[in-house]
């Protein structure tokens, strides 16, 4: 990667050793170099330095002190860390699973070709995704207030009000709803494009063979949609593990309340360790643990989907 720095695209020498091929290669490397330079500084190096940092005690100002695995000890023996871990997983499940099922349903409905308003629906379903998470959280915090609309609806249905901004489950339901609202339509549109990429004659052939709607769904649509489902699930899982802004803003009304236990997530824990308490070492250890958890879940995701793939692959053959 040192080459591109030496020669700029304008410095074209006519010396014979700079053949046309070599010059074009150098140009290409120059064109792509900004990404690799920036990524090495702000992407790659931070990951390795985080691992290194996790073995030191440091407040970001004074000298660093090597402490071995003590940061990991401190973090894993802190009950708040484990609360943040379970919260992240619970809200991840609550936000992701219903969201993907709902998105699939909406996509199948939109695809069925009955509506003439497909384009309009696409735009409407997509609108939540362009809103900032802060705006989403603020709007939903009015809906989820103690006397807010959601509780009014619950009462109307004969159910008790829920403490959405302080209860253990209430907070999680509110935050998962915000995540779902922002992403369901987006995922539905992705699934819709997936559905549109399936050749129509497959369905016609199945219909001639006497397959009903449900059989078409399980034997054609779902298997062919699998790559899209895998992609969406993977991205949603990674996103769910990084959950921060919703709980931080939603529970942060009193300035310091954002680390409240009902809604603390792993990233919130990391943030408050580093930027509130100045414990960069334990924050780094948290980041490493989060990284490991992210990798485990991504691998799990791929494992499950490849097993699913094995089944459908066998079915197709």
């Amino acid at each position, binding site marked *: 990667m040192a080459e591109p720095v030496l020669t700029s695209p*304008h410095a*074209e020498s006519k010396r014979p050793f700079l053949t046309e091929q070599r*010059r074009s*290669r150098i*140009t290409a490397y120059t*064109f792509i170099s*900004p*990404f*690799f330079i*920036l*990524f090495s500084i702000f*992407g790659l190096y*931070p990951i390795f*330095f*985080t691992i290194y940092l996790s073995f030191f005690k440091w407040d*970001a100002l004074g000298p660093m002190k090597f402490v071995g695995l003590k940061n990991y000890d401190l973090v894993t023996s802190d009950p708040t860390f484990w609360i943040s871990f379970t919260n992240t997983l619970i809200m991840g499940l609550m936000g992701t699973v219903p969201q993907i099922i709902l998105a699939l349903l*909406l996509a199948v*409905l939109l695809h069925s*070709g*009955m509506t003439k308003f497909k384009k309009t629906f696409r*735009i*409407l379903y*997509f*609108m939540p995704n*362009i*809103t*900032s*998470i*802060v*705006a989403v959280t*603020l*709007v939903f915090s*009015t*809906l989820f207030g103690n006397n*807010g*609309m959601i509780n*009014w609806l619950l009462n109307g249905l004969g159910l008790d009000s829920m403490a959405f901004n302080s209860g253990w489950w209430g907070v999680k339901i509110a935050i998962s709803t915000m995540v779902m*609202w922002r992403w369901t339509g*987006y995922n539905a*549109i992705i699934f819709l*494009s*997936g559905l549109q990429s399936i050749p129509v004659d497959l369905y016609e052939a199945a219909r001639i063979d006497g397959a*009903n709607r*449900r059989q078409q769904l399980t034997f054609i649509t779902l298997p062919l949609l699998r790559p899209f489902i895998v992609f*969406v699930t*993977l*991205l949603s899982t*990674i996103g769910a593990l*990084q959950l*921060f*802004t919703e709980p931080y*803003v939603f529970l*942060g009304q*009193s*300035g310091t309340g954002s680390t409240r236990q009902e809604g603390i997530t792993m990233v919130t824990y990391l943030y408050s360790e*580093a*930027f509130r308490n100045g414990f*960069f070492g334990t924050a*780094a250890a948290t980041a490493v643990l989060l*990284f490991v958890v992210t990798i485990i879940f991504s691998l799990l995701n791929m494992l499950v989907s490849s097993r699913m793939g094995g089944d459908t692959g066998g079915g197709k053959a």
Partner: protein
Amino acid sequence: MSTLRAFKKNPDDLGFIGKIGYYIVLILGALVSVFPFYWMFVVATNDKGAVFHVPPLLTLGDQFFDNFKRVLEKADFFQALGNSLFVSSMVTISVVFFCTLAGYAFAKYEFPFKNILFYFVIATLFVPQQLGVLPTYVIMAKLHWIDSFKALIVPAMVNAFGIFWMRQYISTAVHTELIEAGRIDGGGHFRIFWNIAIPVITPAMATLGILNFMTVWNDFFWPLVVLKNKEHFTIQIALQQLFTTRDGLDYGMIMSATFTATLPLLIVFLLFSRWVIAGLTSGAIKS
């Protein structure tokens, strides 16, 4: 399901009840998607108490400017709006330029390790940025960029998604014969890129620009970490700062600010929705 069987001859016809159910679900979904936007405006235009009115108030009021006045008392709202505009524009110009350049190289040049490097770019899409936040913060502190817009702009100047997106578009939109013709005419590499490739790919560049602008405009975590001083806050931080119980939650005020901060993006989205949707979903569709 029984209606399905009754109309087996034409499976696309669900029957009357089926059709109604079908539209009810679709319209309900659309309502849920749109309602919070409307609700934002309802709260923004009514007085303080309206937000928890029982039964919920669903009509627009005339208090918008009074509410918004209280925003201006509490925060440098327009300063924050301007800051966001500046940061988002700078990042967007840079991202569009560098990603187009890199996408062009990946699409139209042959060089050793091209595929490996491209897969590497794609792989970085899956690395969450939050994980590297501590060292990045330390770098910024060393550079004395804490509380400066440079900390927001420089790391974001080029990104993997943009490269991926531009490469896809350039592969099909720019014909290799055109580039070769330019080269026979003696054009330099950058000149060919600028004069031959760019004019053909402006739609893709515009889409990338819009998408990127929205992402930067909406970003919260990193600005929260590096910005310290009120006058440097971006719009998202300013909004979050309004959300405080210090003197009772004034939702009319908060929502008038939120609405004003969301409206520009909403307009841009509605004007360019086809491109924006195509861009934002392209990651899944092409990989």
